């Protein structure tokens, strides 16, 4: 599957959607174990409400897994392209 055959929307969904699901699980696991009130990010006591910390945590997890998803997509596509060019060259 060469790159130009996958529409942009599909690529966005393929990255954002699984990472969204992963972020939900990660947020649930993380904040079951750690109470935001006990956390002092960078040694500072924040004044953000728990709901705020949960939300920021969720968005952070989503960002992280999105970055990982973009990496996976990038390597998958470029590997496919390279294999295509190699097979054409033979």
């Amino acid at each position: 599957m060469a790159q130009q055959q996958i529409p942009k929307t599909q690529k966005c969904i393929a990255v954002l959607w699984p990472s969204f699901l992963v972020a939900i699980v990660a947020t649930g696991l993380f904040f079951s174990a750690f109470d935001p009130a006990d956390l002092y990010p960078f040694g500072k006591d924040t004044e953000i409400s728990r709901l705020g910390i949960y939300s920021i945590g969720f968005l952070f997890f989503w960002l992280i897994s999105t970055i990982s998803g973009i990496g996976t997509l990038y390597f998958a596509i470029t590997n496919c392209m390279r294999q295509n060019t190699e097979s054409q060259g033979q």
Partner: protein
Amino acid sequence: MAEVDKQTPVPAGDTDEQVEKSLYAKAAKIYPREVHGLFARLRVMGVLSLLGIYYITPWLRWEGHQALLLDLPARKFHIFFITLWPQDFIYLAALLIIAGLLLFFVTAIAGRIWCGYACPQTVWTEAFLWIERKVEGDRSKQQKLDAQAMNARKFRLKATKQILWIAFAGWTGFTFVGYFTPIMELGQRLVTFELGPWETFWVIFYGFATYGNAGFMREQVCKYMCPYARFQSAMFDRDTLIVSYIPERGEPRGSRKRSDDPRLLGLGDCIDCTLCVQVCPTGIDIRNGLQYECIACSACIDACDDVMEKMGYEKGLIKYTTENTMHGSTSHIIRPRIVIYAAIMLAIMSLFAWSFSQRVSLGLDVIRDRNQLYRETDTGLIENVYILKVLNMDDTAHRYKLAVSGIPGMEMRMDLPEIRVESGDVLELPVRLQVDEDELKARSSEVEFTLVADDDPTLSATESARFLGPR
């Protein structure tokens, strides 16, 4: 789908390559035709009761609090008479596993019945389709309207639909947040424009997701985003209920007059009216065999039965059936797959019920003072300092007795006169343990704290810790 595809008649040319192409093709808008019949009625009943449960539940009260409140700000989940704490995370995980197994079990027996009747994607799409039909009219009117250039009427209809959609989605988002933060106060803050920034964010986020998924993405969510749609075929076998067209009866398809005898014309029972395609919410032709896009909503069954009745033919040209029945063998409900799913499910359910009944509404955590390993007292004893966190998860206040064991002659010193914890409170209790150095066998020994409620000996918790000394 692999397993089932092999057994189902698939028209020539429907290769993997084509499937792949269709997977990534730009989607054309699908206008599902409205359908009436037995299964449509069942689905409407399902949709109404599920929407009812969703929108009403947060407003229910139980003994002075919201009956179902996953109170994230307070880190407590209220489920009617049960209160769950972060420590009870395992029960929620077990519930999810049970729900997953139940889905496997139901899928193996009845196919994608979840998709067709109960999935939130189906439920909200039905609701949005209903609004769309009320405003814009039926399938053909919608198609005509979309083909028109923008005019006053089109603008009015589109704007009405959008306003209704957005209002409905907004209410859905508000209700969603109401599961996580008390909905009464949330409602008050909403009307006085005092919603917190994150509450506002989640109302809009969830509302937008509803609007996008049910208004625009629709069947594409099932086709491209749903993990269950991809792996459900793994639960399928030849005895699983599927929606299928009976090609032996229907082919060769062709149009004819009602008065014609199809046998004389050399035709099967399918009059090729394409109503089954028009009503399909995922836009497939069920006559091409079982396809993974099929969410088993059985709209095509209703549509086809209606036509068969009008033509005076027997109903059931498209029907719920199984691979085995279609190929002339008998179907079995009880088979190894079903027994195994049921056994695992029952085992986890009983384990869950047993462990939940054994749940003690008392939490004890022991944290060693990290600042110093140990210290020597004026009287020459070795002393370690601990912070005990006592969490009363019961719904009444209790007084507790603390005991410690592990090293002979160990003394316990507490600054508090008594250990009394209100319902739902956490008490931080500094405790010092003092030991004669001669009694220490090693640099690190195990000690065990035991906490018991005065009025209820079943309310007890034990937690071990390390006692560090010079040796």
